[in-house]
């Protein structure tokens, strides 16, 4: 079966190898039903950058027939799981690509700690941020699936040799006395009041379950998104240099080899991928490297330090909203006209990738228009157990959210 990363440039590419995370799933008896749509090379927050067209969210606003986005980049995964087409789906998360689509579709999505899953066999976007994880309908399924996917791997030197805990066994455990941090900086200006209410509801549920709520500060949060949009495109521009039409995928003939490269890349990549390759090449170029890339790397360390300070002060997990809004319409003009509006979808999730931490999105309620909204829990490195346990408490309090079938 073809692996095309929803890009025209990988047209017809059939790998002769199996990624470690999927091989782990097959070894445990999982069955592949098919491969799903996504944003091209995982670059997008709405699944609209796919060469194969947008994915439609199974959720619709109450009384509306308007098609909504399923989030992105793993929008095919989130939509298929929400529509009960499959029990669970693999996904990858570089800046929120598991958690944001999970929040938009009322599903559970976990991005594990960097190094928990092997990246071998997964087309790379930004190697220092990418992690694979599951999207499922409940926390238990996510726990089972991550347990299977996670492993150390000789073929990925960034994978970590730590035992994979039995995540499922942690479910139902008490969170009494656990310290849950509420970061002041995530209360962004002009935040949707519905998201504020959802967050407060989440705090109340955890408090009711015996957790201690503590206000924390993550002072460098506001620099995370700008720094992410330097680091991620920089790595992408390097990772995507291999797609040249020589060995696999699309080849557009040219008058000589340079012309062939140029024609292939011009035709093979979509607008968002080209934008990011150009940004990445720019920030890595001589003269700008120090001003942009090096600065962004320093910001990244500061963001990581913020989290480390919170955890060192005794915080066990951090609760935030997963997204700034519910799912929006396919073709939303504000998002298409201004890429930064689209990038803001990941404002609560990118910090987690920048710091290499685990984060889980769990459905927590419905908007006034009847669309699912999610909360995010951020944990200590390799402490996915706490995330599953705490997300399970939220899930039990919030109840199930199933899209009404219209398709």
């Amino acid at each position, binding site marked *: 079966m073809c692996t095309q990363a929803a890009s025209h440039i990988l047209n017809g590419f059939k790998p002769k*190898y199996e990624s470690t995370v999927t091989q782990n799933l097959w070894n445990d008896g999982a069955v592949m039903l098919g491969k799903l749509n996504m944003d091209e090379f995982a670059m997008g927050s709405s699944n609209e950058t796919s060469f194969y067209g947008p994915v439609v969210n199974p959720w619709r606003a109450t009384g509306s027939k308007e098609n909504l986005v399923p989030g992105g980049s793993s929008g095919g995964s989130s939509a298929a799981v929400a529509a009960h087409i499959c029990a669970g789906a693999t996904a990858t998360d570089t800046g929120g690509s598991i958690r944001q689509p999970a929040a938009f579709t009322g599903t559970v999505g976990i991005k594990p700690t960097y190094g928990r899953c092997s990246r*071998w066999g997964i087309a*790379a976007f930004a190697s220092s941020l990418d992690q694979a994880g599951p999207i499922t309908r409940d926390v238990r399924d996510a726990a089972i699936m991550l347990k299977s996917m996670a492993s150390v791997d000789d073929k990925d030197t960034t994978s970590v040799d730590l035992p994979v805990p039995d995540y499922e066994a942690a479910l139902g455990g008490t969170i009494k006395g656990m310290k849950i941090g509420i970061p002041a900086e995530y209360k962004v200006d002009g935040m949707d009041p519905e998201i504020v209410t959802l967050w407060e509801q989440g705090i109340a549920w955890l408090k009711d379950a015996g957790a201690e709520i503590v206000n924390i500060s993550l002072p460098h949060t506001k620099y995370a998104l700008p720094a992410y949009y330097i680091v991620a495109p920089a790595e992408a521009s390097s990772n995507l240099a291999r797609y040249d039409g020589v060995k696999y995928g699309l080849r557009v003939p040219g008058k000589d080899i340079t012309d062939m490269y140029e024609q292939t890349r011009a035709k093979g990549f979509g607008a968002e991928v080209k934008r990011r390759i150009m940004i990445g090449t720019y920030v890595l170029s001589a003269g700008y490297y120090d001003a942009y890339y*090096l600065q962004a790397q320093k910001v990244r360390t500061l963001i990581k330090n913020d989290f480390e300070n919170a955890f060192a002060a005794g915080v066990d997990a951090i609760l935030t909203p997963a997204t700034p809004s519910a799912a929006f319409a396919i073709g939303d003009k504000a998002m298409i006209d201004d890429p930064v509006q689209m990038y803001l979808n990941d404002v609560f999730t990118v910090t987690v990738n920048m710091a290499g931490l685990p984060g889980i999105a769990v459905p927590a309620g419905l908007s006034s228009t009847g669309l699912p909204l999610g909360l995010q829990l951020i944990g200590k490195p390799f402490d996915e157990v706490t995330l599953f346990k705490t997300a399970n408490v939220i899930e039990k309090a919030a109840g199930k959210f199933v899209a009404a079938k219209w398709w």
Partner: protein
Amino acid sequence: MTALVDTRTTDPKRLIPGATGDWEVIIGLEVHAQVTSQSKLFSGSSTKFGAEPNANVSLVDAAMPGMLPVINRKNAWRKPYARVLG
């Protein structure tokens, strides 16, 4: 990438007078060394000389999607590299 700034002060005895001013001669060496190893630095492919075209190519050498470099574990690589780079 990062500009190298030489902070040493020049010994005037080393300067050679030129038409436009004094010159200091600084000689840099770029050393290309081949390490005797059975496999490549970032893949398990053979380094056998004279093999058929494309015979010593692995998935990572060919930059297939999703492939990751893994550094050769043999110490044979590290020591000479440390010497050359250090």
